[in-house]
C-alpha cells in the first residue's frame, strides 16, 4: 500500500551550522527521508582562475592560500611543484625537506579540523576542542616560521620565503612526542564511541567503483579500499625517500567506504604523517632555501598538469603557458569540488541527520569548492 505524500523541500544553508561554510543543499524530503540532494555552490566564488590570468607566476601564490584555507601550505606546495615542473627546475634539498615537513604538519592540522568538526556535526563538542588545542600548537610552529597562522604564502616557486627558525626542528620534535598519545585519546573519546559508530558505520557507503567514477581522491578514495596515494604512487618532491604506510578503509565497523571508514582513515593518516615528519627531521640537510631562479619567471609555452596529495585529496593545477609572465589559463582541480559532487548519490534514502554525517565525512572546504 503506497501512501501518496507530499515532498518537502528543505534548504540547508547557505547559512547553516554544519554545511562547513556557505553551501546550500536543497534537500527533497519525504518525511525525514532524503529523496534527492542538490548542492548549490558558488557563494564563495572569488574568481581565482580569472585572477591568476592577470598575475605573474609568483604573484599567484598568495591566491592559492585562500582556496583550501584549512590547508594553505599544501596549496602553495602544489602550485610550486607544478610551476617548477613547467619550468623544469630542481630546488635545493633543504627546500624539499622544509616543504615536506610543512606539508605534513599542515596535513595533521587539516585532518584535526576535519575530525574535530566531524565530531561536532554529530553532536560531540569536546573532541573538537581537544583537537583544536593541538592544532593551535601546529599553528604556532607555522607562525614561528612565516609569521602567519592561516594563510602562509610560505612555499614559493623555486624555494620557500624564509629559512626555518633555529628552534623549529626541536619544537616540532617535541610536538610529535606530545601529540602521539593524543591520537589514542581521540580514538577513545570519539572513534570507538558506540553512538559515534552507530551514527557513522554503514552510512553513506561509497563503493570503490562509484568512488573512482566520481573522481574521489585522497582519504575519501582510500576509505573505499583503494591503496592510492600520490605520495606513494607518483612521488613528487622527495616523498619517495620516506617510509610510511597508506591506510585504507577496512570496513571495521560496517561496510567498506562508509562514513566511519572515511573518518578513521584520517585518524590513521595522522600517525603516518607523524612518521614522515620524524624521518624528515632526522634527514634535513643544511643549505640554501631559495634556488637561483630569475625574478621574472617566464616558462616556455606549453601545458602542465601537476598534482599533489593534499589533505583533502588530489590537488591538481592545470596550467597553460603561452610563454609570457602570466599564466594563459589556470585551472585548479580542487579535491573538495570533486568530492562534493557525490553528495547527491550518497545521501539518497538516508535521513536528514545522515546528510550532516555524510557531508562531514567527505570533508569539504568551501573556499576550495568555489575557488
Amino acid at each position: 500500500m503506497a501512501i501518496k505524500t507530499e515532498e518537502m523541500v528543505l534548504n540547508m544553508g547557505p547559512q547553516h551550522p554544519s554545511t562547513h561554510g556557505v553551501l546550500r543543499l536543497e534537500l527533497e524530503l519525504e518525511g525525514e527521508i532524503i529523496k534527492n540532494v542538490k548542492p548549490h555552490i558558488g557563494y564563495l566564488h572569488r574568481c581565482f582562475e580569472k585572477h591568476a590570468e592577470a598575475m605573474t607566476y609568483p604573484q599567484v601564490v598568495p591566491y592559492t592560500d585562500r582556496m583550501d584555507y584549512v590547508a594553505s601550505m599544501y596549496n602553495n606546495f602544489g602550485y610550486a611543484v607544478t610551476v617548477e615542473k613547467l619550468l623544469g627546475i630542481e630546488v635545493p634539498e633543504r627546500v624539499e625537506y622544509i616543504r615536506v615537513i610543512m606539508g605534513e604538519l599542515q596535513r595533521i592540522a587539516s585532518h584535526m579540523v576535519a575530525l574535530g568538526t566531524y565530531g561536532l556535526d554529530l553532536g560531540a563538542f569536546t573532541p573538537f576542542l581537544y583537537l583544536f588545542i593541538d592544532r593551535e600548537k601546529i599553528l604556532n610552529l607555522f607562525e614561528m616560521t612565516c609569521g602567519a597562522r592561516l594563510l602562509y604564502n610560505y612555499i614559493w616557486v623555486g624555494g620557500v620565503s624564509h629559512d626555518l627558525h633555529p628552534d623549529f626542528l626541536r619544537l616540532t620534535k617535541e610536538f610529535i612526542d606530545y601529540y602521539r598519545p593524543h591520537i589514542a585519546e581521540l580514538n577513545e573519546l570519539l572513534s570507538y564511541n558506540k553512538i559515534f559508530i552507530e551514527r557513522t558505520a554503514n552510512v553513506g557507503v561509497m563503493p570503490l567503483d562509484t568512488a573512482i567514477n566520481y573522481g574521489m581522491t585522497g582519504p575519501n578514495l582510500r576509505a573505499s579500499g583503494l591503496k592510492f596515494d600520490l605520495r606513494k604512487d607518483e612521488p613528487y618532491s622527495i616523498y619517495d625517500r620516506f617510509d610510511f604506510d597508506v591506510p585504507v578503509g577496512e570496513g571495521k565497523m560496517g561496510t567498506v567506504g562508509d562514513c566511519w571508514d572515511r573518518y578513521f582513515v584520517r585518524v590513521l593518516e595522522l600517525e603516518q604523517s607523524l612518521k614522515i615528519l620524524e624521518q624528515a627531521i632526522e634527514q634535513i640537510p643544511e643549505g640554501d632555501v631559495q634556488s637561483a631562479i630569475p625574478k621574472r619567471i617566464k616558462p616556455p609555452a606549453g601545458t602542465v598538469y601537476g598534482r599533489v596529495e593534499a589533505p583533502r585529496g588530489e590537488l591538481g593545477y592545470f596550467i597553460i603557458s603561452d610563454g609570457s609572465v602570466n599564466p594563459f589559463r589556470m585551472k585548479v582541480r580542487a579535491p573538495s569540488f570533486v568530492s562534493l559532487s557525490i553528495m547527491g548519490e550518497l545521501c539518497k534514502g538516508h535521513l536528514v541527520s545522515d546528510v550532516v554525517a555524510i557531508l562531514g565525512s567527505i570533508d569539504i572546504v568551501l573556499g576550495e569548492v568555489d575557488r
Partner: protein
Amino acid sequence: MKQPKEIFESLKEKFTEYNFEIIEDLPVEPIISVDPLNVNKIGFYLRLDADLQFDSLMVLSGVDDNNAKKIKQEDETEIDDPGTLSVYYHLYSTTLKHKVTLKASAPKDNPEIESVEKVWKTADWHEREAYDMIGIKFLNHPDLRRILMPYDWDENSFPLRKDYENPEFYQGIKVPY
C-alpha cells in the same frame, strides 16, 4: 602502463573514422586532440578497454584558446575566424597507473562538445563549470546549469573567456564602483 604515443596509436586503430592528432612538442605533456562530437565514445573505449582502463578523470578543463584571427579568402575579402574553445581531459588509470591528456576543440561561435558525464560521473560538475566559465555547450549533459556564477547571470556572458568584459550593472547595482 602505456605511453601517450601508444594510446594514440590504439585510438587511431580503433576509431578509423575520426581524426586524431598528437601534439608532442609541448614541454611536459603530450596531448591527443580528438573529435569533439564523439568524445563520449572515445571515453567509453578508453575506460572499458582492458589495456587502457582509464577509470578516473582527473580533471576536465575548459579553455578559451584565444586564437581568433582574420582569414584572407581568395577574393581578398576577410572573414572572421572566431577561434576555438577547447576542453582538456586528463585521464588516469588507477589500475594500470598511466596517464593521458585529451583535447577537444570546438569553434567559438558554436561551441558544442559531447558530454562525457555518462563515462565519468565526475565530469558532471566539471562540465558545468566549463559551461559556466567558458560557455562550452555539452551535448546530452543531464543538468547543464551555471554552477559557480549566480543562476541569473547573463546567459551569454562567460567570465573566463578572453574577450569577457565586466558588465556595467548586475541586478541594478553598478559593478565597477
